[in-house]
């Protein structure tokens, strides 16, 4: 294990794991694999939105748990980096905790839950609410990198469609939504066009996050382990969500604000609080919510009278056994 060099950003971050695993190369992957992934990343950056094939490796976790993101992070990360990992916006879920500890052990890097302290952020299905900066790299875990896959199952065909910039089928599919439901019903993994050329899957982030990708100062890298694809969006690159002139792209909105921090501008998760219909809406981005609460913001604690207000009769919400 190489010596770890101190970095100013570590001041408030968790110190590097001194119990780093021995017997592995730095950041787990062997050097030849890293070179191959690094070359793929560079091509991805040079061809924004194009899915570069790469020789995805077996990782010590199953496909679908972020093998693509982990391989990209392993190829990019260095001892000076501070890593943050989020899963659906939260730093404290199983997937996020384990990936963070994986790199703390195999690379000895500092980790953090704070968006502003991180230099590399690996994410499953959210973009942090706090705007990212030029000094950060956002690594997405991607299950299905091919936006056209549900329309055309053959790889040879979708590759041709991308080569010829033939995206009619995608527009027809969005139009069918409008014809059937009056609006485009895709709410996550909403297709985007990158730099006016490639249609790209933004990974299953809510469409709420799509506008954040547009001209983002941070570099965005995407890794799909099972599907063996890497792609990228360079900083300050145009990312446009597909839409129609008469049906422009819109994002989700809520009547509520966050029950914990009162934020009215963040993506909210619905949390069921009892078996009587009680529920609350809280920020999906746990760090954003915490920073706001630390700054003194407070929510209304949730709507405990939700059931009453919506006039759900008592006998329908109580468990049936007490009669």
């Amino acid at each position, binding site marked *: 294990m190489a010596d770890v060099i101190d970095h100013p950003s570590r001041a408030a971050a968790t110190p590097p794991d001194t119990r780093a695993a021995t017997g592995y190369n730095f950041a787990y992957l062997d050097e030849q694999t890293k070179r191959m992934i690094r070359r793929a990343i*560079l091509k991805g950056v040079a061809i924004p939105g194009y899915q570069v*094939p790469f020789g995805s490796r077996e990782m010590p976790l199953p496909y679908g748990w972020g093998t693509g993101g982990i391989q990209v992070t392993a190829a990019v990360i260095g001892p000076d980096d501070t890593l943050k990992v989020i899963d659906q916006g939260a730093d404290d879920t199983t997937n996020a905790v384990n990936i963070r500890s994986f790199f703390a052990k195999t690379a000895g890097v500092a980790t953090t839950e704070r968006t502003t302290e991180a230099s590399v952020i690996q994410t499953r299905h959210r973009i942090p609410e706090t705007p990212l900066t030029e000094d950060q790299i956002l690594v997405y875990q991607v299950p299905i990198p091919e936006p056209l896959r549900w329309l055309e199952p053959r790889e040879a065909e979708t*590759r041709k469609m991308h080569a010829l910039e033939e995206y009619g089928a995608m527009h027809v599919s969005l139009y069918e939504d409008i014809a059937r439901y009056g609006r485009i019903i895709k709410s996550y993994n909403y297709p985007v066009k990158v730099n006016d*050329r490639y249609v790209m899957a933004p990974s299953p982030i809510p469409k709420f996050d799509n506008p954040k990708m547009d001209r983002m100062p941070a570099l965005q890298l995407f890794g799909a382990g099972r599907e063996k694809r890497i792609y990228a969006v360079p900083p300050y690159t145009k990312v446009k969500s597909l839409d129609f002139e008469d049906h422009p792209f819109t994002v989700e909105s809520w009547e509520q604000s966050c029950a914990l921090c009162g934020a009215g501008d963040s993506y909210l998760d619905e949390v069921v609080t009892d078996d009587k219909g009680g529920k609350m809406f809280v920020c999906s981005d746990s760090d954003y919510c915490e920073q706001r609460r630390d700054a003194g913001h407070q929510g209304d604690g949730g709507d405990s009278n939700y059931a009453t207000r919506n006039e759900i009769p008592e006998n329908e919400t109580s468990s049936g056994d007490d009669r």
Partner: protein
Amino acid sequence: MAAMTDIKPGFHDPVLDSQAVFRAVLDAMARPGRLHRVSHLKDVPAPLAPATAAVCLALVDQDTPLWLAPDMRSQGAETFLRFHCGCPLVDDRSTAAFAIVSGGKLPGLDGFAIGDDAYPETSTTVIVQTEGLATGEGLVLRGPGIEATHRLAVLGLRSGVWREWADNGPLFPCGVDLILVDDQTLAALPRTTTVTEQEA
């Protein structure tokens, strides 16, 4: 066959030095025209520049055929690259994944691999050794990775390079990418960057 003692040393720490050089190239490619210093190698075989050698050690291996321009060939350089990178050195630049050229004798950009529309990543990354790089003056760069415009001065290039570069852009998604090197400094121009020589 060169004796082992003739081969200049590689990275002091192959793992972390490769990572640091890659990150410099990644940021250079993501933010075209910005300068990055890679000082991991001091003693490299002529005519390679320290940054050229560092990029090769970080990215080139047995999977990536390398083409050396005629004025970049020397026994020291070839032995160094064969030994540290294990890469095949090829005679035909249209089959190379990486190429090392000098700015003054840069061969026509159209002779390198540009990839094809289905697999545009099978193009050549050309490492160009220049006589000087400076930001804030010179060429005006635009494109992905650049907020508005960025300025980069490149010294020691033969004439006509930027006319050929203007023909490279419309090939997108195909086309070559450039890594510009000056001693221990590097910058990159991906195929998406447009270059204007003079701003009114």
